[in-house]
């Protein structure tokens, strides 16, 4: 009946919500002790295990967070300098999940913030780990969020393909000390050797274009000089490596939910040689764009499985969602309304 989003149906839902939500609130308060008893009986073991696991996780992540904050700040400054959109420039509204969908066939949650906070239909919703879904209904003090596992959810995403891992070989090759990094594992000691070219004066991965007439003492306006390359110091002509040649490649696709019991998938990945092989664990972020449901570079998850297909069809990628959708609590609604979700003028 309401597949065309008629205003009368929305008004009916809003009116019924106004009558029903106070009753629901009273019932929630009354049934909270019973609810707590139920969860105390059924979830105690899981909660204890989760608590231990999370304590370990926090200890590990505290150090990484500090480094990441600095990195994120630098990235935002770079994006701002180049006039590119960043999440830092988008206002948000923080809310708490107050309930799931009472249906067994849709994946939605309800949050305790709504139109009064500026939330509108279509806005992306995140938690600390990453994207969790989008707003599908907004009342005065409540909003319904469709999770990214819902079959009706679709989002344009980017897959950041990591370069192939460096080869590790046993510690047999004699190398100069500055090129060695020693890693200790539980079984043996291996040495990671930075790839060294046989071409004199060329080190792969250097992001610098050398200038033939540059003075050795002149300050360089280019980026870092790695290894032993110095402009003018080589006795043979040097090879210019264009900046960004070793940056991770990106490819876009469409993420689709497949229900609660199945991981979302990414379709329409082009099977092009430049992009190369997708690795399990490659990060997936929102792609952004004028018609996208979310701004760019919101973390969605990682590739958990690759399903190869024949011919020119690209692979299907199963996604391990970064956010734990089964235990959502505080969420952040980005006050970013996609153009496709804006109500058209009458």
């Amino acid at each position: 009946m309401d597949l065309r989003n008629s205003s009368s149906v929305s008004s009916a839902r809003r009116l019924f919500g106004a009558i029903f939500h106070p009753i629901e609130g009273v019932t929630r308060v009354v049934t909270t002790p019973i609810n707590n008893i139920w969860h105390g009986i059924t979830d105690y073991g899981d909660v204890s295990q989760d608590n231990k696991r999370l304590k370990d996780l926090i200890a590990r992540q505290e150090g990484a967070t500090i480094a990441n904050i600095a990195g994120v700040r630098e990235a935002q400054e770079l994006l701002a300098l180049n006039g590119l959109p960043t999440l830092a420039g988008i206002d948000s509204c923080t809310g708490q999940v107050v309930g799931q969908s009472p249906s067994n066939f849709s994946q939605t949650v309800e949050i305790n913030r709504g139109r009064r906070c500026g939330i509108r239909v279509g806005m992306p919703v995140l938690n600390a780990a990453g994207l969790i879904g989008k707003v599908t209904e907004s009342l005065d003090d409540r909003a319904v969020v469709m999770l990214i596992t819902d079959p009706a959810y679709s989002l344009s995403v980017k897959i950041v393909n990591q370069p192939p891992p460096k080869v590790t070989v046993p510690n047999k090759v004699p190398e100069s000390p500055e090129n060695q990094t020693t890693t200790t594992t539980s079984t043996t000691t291996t040495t990671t050797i930075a790839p060294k070219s046989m071409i004199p004066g060329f080190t792969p991965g250097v992001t610098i274009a050398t200038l033939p007439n540059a003075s050795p003492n002149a300050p360089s306006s280019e980026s870092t000089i790695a290894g032993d390359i110095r402009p003018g110091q080589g006795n043979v002509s040097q090879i210019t490596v264009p900046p960004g040649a070793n940056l991770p490649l990106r490819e876009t696709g469409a993420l689709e939910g497949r229900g609660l019991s199945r991981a979302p998938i990414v379709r329409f990945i082009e099977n092009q040689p430049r992009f190369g092989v997708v690795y399990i664990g490659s990060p997936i972020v929102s792609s952004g764009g004028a018609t996208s449901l979310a701004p760019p570079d919101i973390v969605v998850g990682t590739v958990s499985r690759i399903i190869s297909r024949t011919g020119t069809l690209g692979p299907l990628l199963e996604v391990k969602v970064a956010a734990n959708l089964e235990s959502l609590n505080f969420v952040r609604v980005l006050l970013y309304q996609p153009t496709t979700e804006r109500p058209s003028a009458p």
Partner: protein
Amino acid sequence: MNRILTIAQQPLTRLFLVALIVLSFQTTIFNTMRPFGVCLQVMLLLSTSSGLARGSEIGAIAGFIVGMMYDLVLSTPLGLGAVVFALVGYLAGMTNSFVHQPTWWTKMLLAGAASGLGMLFMPLALTIVGREGVMNRHILVVALVVGVTNAAATVPAERLCGWVLSEPSEVR
């Protein structure tokens, strides 16, 4: 004043008020207590019990009202749940009419079967209107768990619906 009282005493008014309270339980406590990962469906129980208590026609009407109220808090297309719940209420009432001298356990069986069928009809209806990904093996678990739990709660629910849907003279 008399007019308001008369309206308030109508079975459908009582049904609306009782369904409102049951719906609040559905969206709170039964929403979080999920045995085997399945959300129990007390609104569906209300529909089947209405059919068992008052026959197929009243069961269908009650099911439609209850389903429509449920649809108003869900994000599924409005009216879909109403149609499914009306069908379930009708089925429960109709099959009960074939039973010679229904007993408490026959009603439990019928309510369980009707509820289980309702949980199979719902994803079917969702698929018909274009929702993808809802027809999977998990719906069998949902149907089984909802069927068993609704069967267990049929006797008190049927008594409640018998009172709710009775005519004003019977209540006095």
